[in-house]
């Protein structure tokens, strides 16, 4: 099997307990989700708060196991206990809150944490740490305390920490939600570079539309289901559906869409300002 992730109708129920600790019922967070992600792809999962996208991310990293259905990561079933470590090594995960995932008090020690757990020999750990920190452009901060870094820098350290485990795939679970615009750019740039240069599969979970436009495929989630999927062009040609799922369009697409409403014959699925400018020039020349 040469699929990075293959999920077949997986569902997941959270258990809800009452004040006395007795089972009150279950909440369905994932509802029959099927996924098919190739090696080397850049995937974005869009969805409103509470749409189930974080729960889905945790399935790929085997932090949660589906209540129904099966999911294979790099050809391995996540339900099998003995696959756990291999799956977590090949599909690394970066979380939302930069403060709650850095374990060590020095940057390089945090990046070394994953390889230490994998039992990598000491000399190789150092090589991996150096290489990973250089890849995300944080090598000069290797001796710093994480407390002194900006949000974007902390997230890049977290990415390096995953990278040092030599994964085939990195899942980024809303890595930019708590960052300022500058930090957001840094993190997205790092993720794209990993995909372009290192050919690592990226699964980016976000609700910033602008971050999705460079991906190979987009999945839109709502109420635990995948409700839309396709290329960015396809997805962002369906503004009404996106609004229904509490999402929106990238800025340039919004402008193009409004212009179309005003009678200017622009094509669907314009994603960035360069495309918009090109199309407008075409229209002007046609006149």
């Amino acid at each position: 099997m040469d699929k990075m992730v293959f999920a077949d109708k997986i569902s997941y129920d959270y258990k809800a307990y009452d004040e006395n600790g007795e089972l009150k019922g279950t909440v369905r967070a994932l509802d029959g989700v099927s996924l098919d992600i190739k090696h080397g792809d850049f995937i974005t999962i869009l969805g409103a708060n509470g749409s189930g996208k974080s729960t889905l991310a945790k399935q790929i990293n085997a932090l949660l196991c589906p209540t129904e259905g099966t999911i294979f990561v790099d050809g391995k079933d996540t339900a099998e206990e003995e696959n756990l470590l291999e799956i977590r090594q090949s599909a690394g995960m970066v979380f939302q809150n930069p403060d709650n995932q850095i374990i060590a008090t020095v940057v390089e020690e945090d990046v070394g944490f994953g390889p230490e757990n994998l039992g990598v020999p000491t000399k190789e750990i150092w090589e991996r740490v150096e290489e990973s920190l250089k890849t995300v452009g944080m090598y000069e901060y290797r001796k710093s305390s994480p407390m002194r870094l900006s949000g974007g820098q902390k997230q890049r350290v977290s990415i390096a920490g995953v990278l040092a485990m030599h994964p085939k795939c990195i899942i980024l679970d809303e890595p930019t939600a708590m960052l300022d615009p500058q930090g957001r750019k840094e993190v997205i740039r790092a993720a794209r570079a990993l995909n372009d240069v290192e050919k690592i599969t990226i699964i980016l979970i976000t609700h910033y539309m602008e971050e999705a436009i460079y991906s190979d495929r987009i999945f839109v989630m709502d109420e635990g289901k995948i409700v839309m999927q396709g290329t960015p062009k396809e997805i962002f040609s369906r503004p009404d559906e996106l609004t229904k799922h509490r999402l929106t369009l990238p800025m340039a697409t919004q402008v193009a869409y409004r212009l179309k409403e005003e009678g200017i014959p622009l094509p669907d699925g314009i994603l960035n300002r360069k495309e918009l400018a090109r199309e407008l020039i075409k229209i002007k020349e046609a006149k």
Partner: protein
Amino acid sequence: MELKTENLTYEYESNSATPTRAVDGVSFVIPGGEFLGIVGHTGSGKTTLVQLLDGLLKPSAGTVYLDGEDINAKNYSRKKMRAGIGIVFQYPEYQLFESTILKDVCFGPKNQGLKDEEAEKVAVEALKRVGIKEEQFELSPFELSGGQRRRVAIAGVLAMQPKILILDEPTAGLDPAGREEMLSLMDELNRDGMTIILISHSMEDVAAHASRIMVLDKGKVFLDGAPAEVFAHVEELENIGLAAPEAYYILEEIRKAGLEIETENTVTVEDAVSKIKKSLC
């Protein structure tokens, strides 16, 4: 209610020998009923500034006047000030502590000295205002979604009936629809006469909602004026690590591609649309 600062300065001790100035000689007047956006990148002093405005920090120098009275004066009543200014911190949902939503929102009014029934009355009003339904009032805050919890926290401040409301990044972490709802809530409050001071990283949000924008850099007021005025200084903004709203860059790209188009005063999507239309016709 007018909020005014004169030469406001705040220094704190750091590892270096000289103390760091987080806020450095800031003077401005915010008349009642204004919608002010404060922007600046992380570490520009925004958060320190609003804490000074709310009397949570004592200025190292300078004064904050609320309706002409110095809020740090010895005989000035804190209670009076709290009734004047409300502040919503970043991720305010993490400050909830009571067993039910209603009780939590009553905390502020009760501290102001209201009786139980009266406190409950203003709390109910505030909760309805932020769109929490009556059947949810007796729920524990932890049974709500993150976005709803944030609304409850905002209600907790609104229930104190402030004339001026300061919000620090109230849209952080919300999805696009949630962001829009939060911003329209602010618009509504402003329409009812409340002064809104919104701190935000998003130039687009500030541009579309505020009537005045203040840009902070290194603790100083860098630019101050109507959105169109402030965003006319694109280069200066870029130099301090900020940017104009995306709509401006869209038009700039179109202009560079060879279409004759006026790019000045482009703040919102609608500005961009009308200008593109004009240049095409």
